Structure formats: structure tokens, C-alpha cells
């Protein structure tokens, strides 16, 4: 019998494993998206896209290289970037699942609540908008999404040393921006 290395490869083929993964992370994914998108329908579309991307790329997850959530945030971030390159209409036309069609009024209000709850995070990200793209991506994952620097490095596919340098640089730059609340951006040290 072959020793089984349990990565995430099974979740793309095994509905039970996929459901467990989905239930474990559904809320984190919608929150991640609610911090970046202000419209419940767009959050629903993107949630569907993120989990479809999970099915497509589960085989790329390596347990040794970071936590599930770090990998998942990496997938979510790539999905968002891809979405920003395409127009929203194009995204919907090509998507295999239209998330917004699955929404009922209760779901919309729940997502709106979530988006409201995440508004401080959105303001923090606006404050980071002036940073260079690479530094900003890293700081977002650490300061706003709550990953450790090592997990954020895994999510972005960069080395931990590189991440530390970039984080240090980003924090220093931010201290000079008026209106940024220091405790928020200082969280997540390890």
C-alpha cells in the first residue's frame, strides 16, 4: 500500500474532502473578498470563481510550504487580479458558475453586513494604495488579512527573507502617511 501524502490533491476529486475544505474556509474567503470588493453580487461571483480556481489548482498545494489558508488567499488574490484584468461582464459570461444567481435576499443582506464589517480594512488598504505593488500585496496579507509573514510569503510565492525586507520597508513608508492607524498595520508580527 502506498503511503498517502495528504495534500489537497484529493479535494478536486473527492466531494466529501472538498465539502470539508469548503465549509472550513467559506467564511474566510467571503471576508477576504468583502475587504476588497464593495458589492455583494460581485463578492458572490468572486466566491464562486475562487472555489472553482481551488478545484483547478488543488494539485499545486504543498503542505510543507505554508498553511491551507495562505495557499487559499494566494488563489483568491490571483482570482481577483485576473478579474481586474477582465471586465466584469466578460467574467460573468465566461464563468462556469454565476455566483450572483445563487443569491437570495437574505444572502445579499448577510454579504452587505460582511462588507460593512470589513470597512476599516478597506480604509487601511486605501491608505496602502500608494505603496509599490509587491510591498502592498504583502502588507495587505499580513496587516489586513492576518497571515503571518511566513504564510504571506507562501501565498505570494516569495522567500521569507524577501518578505521580511519588504514588510519592513512597507511599514516604514506607511508611518509617514497621515491617517493610518499604527496598531492595525503593526499586527501580525512573528
Amino acid at each position: 500500500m502506498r503511503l498517502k501524502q495528504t495534500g489537497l490533491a484529493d479535494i478536486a476529486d473527492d466531494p466529501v474532502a472538498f465539502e470539508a475544505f469548503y465549509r472550513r474556509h467559506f467564511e474566510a474567503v467571503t471576508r477576504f473578498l468583502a475587504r476588497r470588493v464593495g458589492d455583494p453580487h460581485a463578492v458572490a461571483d468572486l466566491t464562486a470563481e475562487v472555489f472553482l480556481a481551488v478545484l483547478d489548482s488543488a494539485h499545486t498545494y504543498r503542505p510543507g510550504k505554508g498553511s491551507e489558508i495562505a495557499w487559499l488567499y494566494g488563489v483568491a488574490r490571483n482570482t481577483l487580479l485576473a478579474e481586474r484584468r477582465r471586465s466584469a461582464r466578460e467574467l460573468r459570461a465566461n464563468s462556469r458558475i454565476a455566483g450572483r444567481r445563487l443569491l437570495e435576499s437574505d444572502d445579499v443582506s448577510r454579504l452587505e453586513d460582511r462588507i460593512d464589517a470589513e470597512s476599516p480594512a478597506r480604509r487601511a488598504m486605501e491608505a496602502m494604495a500608494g505603496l509599490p505593488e509587491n510591498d502592498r500585496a504583502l502588507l495587505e496579507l499580513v496587516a489586513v488579512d492576518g497571515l503571518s509573514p511566513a504564510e504571506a510569503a507562501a501565498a505570494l510565492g516569495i522567500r521569507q527573507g524577501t518578505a521580511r525586507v519588504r514588510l519592513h520597508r512597507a511599514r516604514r513608508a506607511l508611518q509617514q502617511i497621515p491617517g493610518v492607524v499604527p496598531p492595525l498595520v503593526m499586527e501580525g508580527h512573528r
Partner: protein
Amino acid sequence: MNDTFEDRLLAELKTEMAIRPARAAAPRRMTGRRIFAAAGVLGLAAAAAVAVPMVVGTDTPAYALTKNADGSINLKIHEFRDPDQVERDLAGMGVTADITYLPLGKWCGNLRVTPVDGDHLSMSPEELASEDPAVTEKARKRLLSSISYKAIEMRNGITIHPEYIKPGQVAVIEVAENQVKPTDSPGVVWSVRGHLSAGPAKPCQVVDQPGAFEVGDATPPPGS
């Protein structure tokens, strides 16, 4: 309906999983016995799969499994669009079910079940190829006397008879529904296949079923 976006999206994603091309698996040698068993199940499919011509009525009634006085359970085909919900509801009635919902034109091409005692699903290659009505009728009678067919009866949509399902056995049901309402009458609206398995079903390996849209000589089951 008390399910949420989370539940509905999960159901869609599972459907998506089922219709994704199965990942290329390492080719495996089959023993003579396994080939025989696979042919048997496919034989059952030919006999028990029911293609349903144009169904009258467009409204989708509220979701409801119906439990009959004799303990049997009725399921209408549109209810399978949320396979997880059906599995949960059946579990609540004491039946372990594995439901796969596919678009018409796709089908699980692999042997998914572990055969149970009381199933006579094996057909010889001669029987499968035979055009002699006496031979096919005999094979058909044997298939229809199988426990699987008694437990998952193709009547009134699907009628499940829990008394034929032993503890630990799983009712494996595959439903393929036409995503486009047939405009030409007659057209195939849905097609369904059910087996009992002595344990959990293996994942569905989806294959094309090009002939699925043709009505052929299928007759609608009584009550549909």
C-alpha cells in the same frame, strides 16, 4: 427553503466537480472477472436507465420528498438539482444515498458500486450482443428481479424502498437532466440510473453519452 448561498454554491461546485474531465488515471489491468462485472453493470444501465419523453407542466413545485404510507419515498427529478440536499433529506429518513447530478449527454462511465447480495447484474457478452428477443427478455427479467431495482424503483420519478436497503449499503443514483427544455416533441427530459452498493461509491468518471438525447424505444415509467 432555508439553505443559504453557501449551500447553493457548494451544490453547484459539486456538480462542476462531477462534470469535470476525470483526471487521467494510470491505466490499470483488468482481470477477466472485473471486465465481466463492469459489463454487467453497463448491461443494467441499458435495461434500467429510463429516458423520459417530454413531461407536461412547467412549474417547479416546492422541494419535498414524499414518504408514503408503506415506507417508500418518492423523489421527483427536479429535486435532484440540489443533490446534497437530497442526500441530507434521505439520510434523515434513514437512507444513505450518493447522488450525482449531471447534464444530459454525460454519464458516469466507471463501475462505481460494490455489488450487493441479491443483485444479478452480470450479463454475458453474448447476452449483451444478442438481438434475440427471447435472450434479451430473459436477461431483462433477471435484471429486474435484482435487489437494486427493487430498492430504487423507476416509478413516480424515483421511488426508494428502504426495506430492501441493508445497513451499510448505499443507494447510488445518477441523474442526467436535459439543460435545454426539448422543443421538439418527443425529446429526452431526463435519464436516471440507480444501483445499490455494499459500501461507499467510487467517484464518478464522467464520459460523454452522445445518444442520450435520442428517445429511442424507451418508454416512460408509470406515473411520470
